[in-house]
């Protein structure tokens, strides 16, 4: 029992002093009390910015988020058209969804009071279902100084420009195992890129196999849609990377290099054992004209379905543009051969140096086979359409590349002008640099207008190709020496297009230059050559702007004839040709095995 002290009796009466103080409480609803500026209140989503990647749904630990279709919003390349719907019966306002949002479209307002008599109201799609707090400027946002996503790529080791100039060795070394895992773990598995890839490869699927170090499974996934994975892992135009959701805030995943990494891990002799392709012959025959990526891809997929496939190729070796148009420092022969050898190993018969229309008639193929697929590519260089272009010192970019690939001397001399801004122009220029020439690239528009891959442009610049942009060639003349040629070109001014198109170059007649070169390489485009087609079949084929019109499965109006590759698609790249090959195989199979037309 404590001793009683007077102080302990009096002291507690201090309580009374408080009765004169104002209350601490708020007088709701008269006094409003807004949430703190960064309070985690109700969600706000900028649906214009959102691309429906569903990463918020993945990270939500309460399963409070569903991705739902939204009225007036359809899927398009790079956007699934879905938007997150929140179930506030489950949400705990942890804001992980905001932190991980790949586009920063999702945030929270500082509003925290919401009264409604219908519990289903608490399931809503922010940004779509209008809410009073949609315009509140305050609320939680991810602090830009931290991110739950990895936004930077590991640096790829490459040959330096000086080293590159001295050899035709591959410039890009490929990822190290550590880099590959770091890069693969940046993927959020949203599947948005799958729609962009012309071949619709299972990209998140094979990236996952890198994280799991299961390269055999990775190879199997690659070969489901693309028998040219080793090649595409090097030279693909990688449009998937343009739509990678990580690209909204950071560097997109290096999907191309990751694909290459998988194929680099597995030696060619193991392919058969891993892929375990079992072929049941179905007794039907298909002829394929052109052993480029389109033709061989069709051959691969048809062969898997049991067709007897004969490929006719005019060149000495298979690969088409991949072999004769892409220099070995981008795509070494052994990487290409790895892919081609596997396709051929499945029992595809190939006739080299057999030009259809010369050695064998198209009609024969047509009559002797159940279907014909051709993807003969664009191999006729377009002319410069200027006076004097038939000068013997005007070479075509394709020819130069082909000569170098076949280890012939292209005879370009020491001082070269390349005209054009596409990949062929860049490749031709870089090849010439490697055989010791000084190179000037003349292009009508600006660098940012060049259709070539940005990496190619950067590497060409690093290799000291001289870029002269907004230069329009006017006239080609004889030089004093037979080994030289003179070109007149004028400076151009970019004029905005009134119809909203891209700006046009307009020649300024008063700013003309005259230069002399050892040769001029024209690389401004290519066209197809269809002289091998018999007239009656040619009549049946519909073409538009130089490209054949085909069905989803590459079928023409002649149900037996299928076309793919650069001559049928707008994108004119390897991966599109490969996709065409696959779809042609599906179409041919539908026609031949099910006896139905294709869509």
């Amino acid at each position: 029992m404590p001793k009683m002290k007077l102080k302990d009796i009096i002291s507690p009466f201090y309580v009374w002093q408080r009765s004169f103080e104002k209350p601490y409480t708020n007088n709701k609803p008269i006094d409003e009390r807004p949430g703190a500026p960064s309070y985690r209140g109700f969600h706000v989503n900028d649906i214009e910015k959102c691309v429906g990647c569903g990463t918020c749904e993945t990270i939500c630990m309460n399963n409070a988020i569903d991705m739902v279709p939204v009225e007036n919003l359809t899927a398009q390349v790079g956007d699934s058209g879905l938007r997150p719907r929140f179930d506030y019966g489950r949400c705990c306002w942890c804001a992980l969804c905001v932190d991980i949002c790949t586009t920063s479209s999702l945030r929270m307002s500082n509003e925290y009071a919401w009264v409604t008599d219908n519990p289903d109201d608490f399931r809503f799609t922010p940004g779509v279902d209008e809410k009073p707090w949609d315009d509140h400027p305050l609320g939680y946002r991810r602090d830009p100084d931290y991110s739950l996503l990895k936004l930077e790529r590991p640096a790829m080791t490459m040959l330096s420009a000086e080293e590159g100039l001295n050899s035709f060795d591959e410039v890009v070394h490929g990822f190290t195992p550590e880099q590959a895992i770091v890069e693969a773990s940046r993927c959020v598995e949203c599947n948005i890129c799958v729609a962009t890839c012309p071949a619709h490869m299972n990209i998140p699927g094979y990236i996952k196999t890198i994280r799991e170090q299961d390269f055999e499974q990775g190879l199997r996934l690659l070969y489901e849609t693309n028998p040219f994975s080793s090649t595409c892992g090097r030279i693909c135009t990688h449009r998937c990377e343009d739509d990678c959701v990580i690209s909204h805030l950071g560097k997109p995943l290096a999907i191309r290099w990751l694909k290459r990494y998988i194929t680099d891990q597995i030696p060619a002799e193991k392919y058969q054992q891993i892929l375990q392709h079992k072929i049941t012959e179905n007794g039907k025959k298909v002829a394929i004209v052109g052993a480029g990526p389109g033709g061989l891809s069709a051959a691969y997929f048809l062969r898997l379905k049991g067709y007897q496939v004969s490929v006719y190729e005019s060149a000495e070796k298979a690969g088409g543009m991949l072999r004769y148009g892409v220099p070995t420092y981008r795509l070494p022969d052994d990487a290409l051969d790895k892919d081609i050898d596997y396709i051929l190993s499945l029992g595809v018969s190939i006739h080299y140096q057999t030009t259809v229309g010369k050695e064998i008639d198209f009609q024969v193929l047509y009559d002797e086979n159940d279907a014909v697929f051709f993807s003969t590519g664009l191999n006729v260089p377009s002319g410069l359409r200027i006076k004097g272009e038939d000068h013997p010192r005007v070479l075509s970019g394709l020819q130069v590349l082909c000569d170098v690939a076949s280890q012939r001397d292209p005879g370009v001399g020491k001082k070269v002008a390349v005209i054009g801004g596409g990949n062929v122009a860049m490749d031709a220029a870089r090849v010439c640099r490697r055989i010791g020439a000084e190179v000037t690239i003349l292009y009508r528009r600006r660098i940012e207008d060049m259709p070539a891959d940005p990496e190619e442009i950067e590497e060409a610049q690093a290799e000291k190709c001289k870029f002269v942009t907004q230069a329009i060639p006017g006239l080609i003349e004889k030089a004093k020496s037979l080994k030289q040629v003179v070109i007149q070109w004028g400076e151009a001014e970019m004029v905005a297009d009134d119809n909203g198109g891209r700006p046009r170059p307009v020649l300024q007649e008063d700013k003309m230059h005259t230069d002399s070169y050892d040769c001029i390489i024209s690389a401004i485009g290519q066209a197809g050559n269809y002289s091998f087609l018999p007239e009656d079949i040619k009549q049946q084929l519909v073409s538009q702007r130089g490209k054949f019109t085909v069905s989803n499965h590459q079928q023409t109006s002649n149900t037996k004839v299928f076309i793919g590759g650069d001559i049928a698609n707008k994108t004119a790249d390897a991966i599109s040709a490969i996709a065409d090959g696959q779809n042609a195989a599906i179409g041919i199979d539908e026609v031949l095995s099910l006896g139905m037309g294709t869509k």
Partner: protein
Amino acid sequence: MPSISQQPHKFDPPLEPDLTSGKYVKIWHGPQHPGITGNMSLELTICGDEVAHCKTHVGYLHRGFEKLMERRTFIQNFPVVCRIAVPEPAFNEYLYAAAIEEIAEIEVPELAQWLRVLNLELMRLASYLMWLGGSSGSFGMTTVYQWTVTHRDYILDLFEEMTGARIYHMYITPGGVRAKLPEGFKGRVLKVMQGVEKLLYEVEKVVFNNHVFKLRSQGLGIISKDMIDEYGIVGPNQRACGFERDLRKDQPYLVYDQLDFEVVTETESDAYTRAWVRYQEMHQSVSMIRQVLDKMPEGGSFHADLPNVLHWNVPAGETYVKAECTRGEYGYYMVTDGSEYLQRIHIRGPSYTHAVSVMEKLAVGINIADVAGLMVSLHTYPPEIER
């Protein structure tokens, strides 16, 4: 292996009184009882108004966090852990983060460490204020409860501003913290601290210099020195018994080694002394918060670089991390197997022993009116028992 001898032993549970004798009545204290901390109940057998036997019952929270965390990824667990102890979520956040950081060898930036200490000490103060209110309430002084909860709310306002939420801050993430301090925040903290100090001055007059409080709490629930280690008693409960043990001093974590403070100890070890120890620690927290604001770096990174959290395989490992929470040693025992999920997590809360074995022992022989007072004097949180 020796078999358990049949001789009675001090740790054997006390024999239950014979209810058929007619001398005893069994009553339930809780789970819905304002004098109980949280949702738990005491099964009391009383003889007159004296408690003859006490059994603790938990299980009213129905949670199983440890199990739920095994099927969530490492980042997904971060919003879960704060729910384990409602009045004191920050310690859970910190320990969960610290355990991962230790296993995954993540270096936490200095600014983040200071911000964590600021967060933890504000949390300690808020939690003590709530306890102080509950404690006064349990001894019949509900007015004090209004005061302390008000000031706790002022701290919650600070949390709201600092972290984006009042109770479940989700601020301390693996790798650092989630945000920098807002503009002018320090000044507002200092202002709230002034208010708290004024409040503490008043509380001293009204609670600690109060004959009624002394009458009821002095001599109540005395914990003997032997019991401390025998029952694993920690925190203010052991410091009130004369043990100078405080993890912030003994095994300093974060930046506690750069703060100036003395471990508070007393010797009486009854309910009053325990309250007095906590009261002094509140002053200590106020002083630490001022030191932190004073010493913390102005800028710098507040979050370490993590791998993509969607594919985060924390390496295989095992660790036990602990921190001094308001009730003593709070620990996370984490076992990982290199996958994206936890192999096991065990959360060690001080109330596990305080509210079960210690409570059952101390309750015997006290007046039934003092049961609530005894319980708050041990400062128990049932959520720590049933994680």
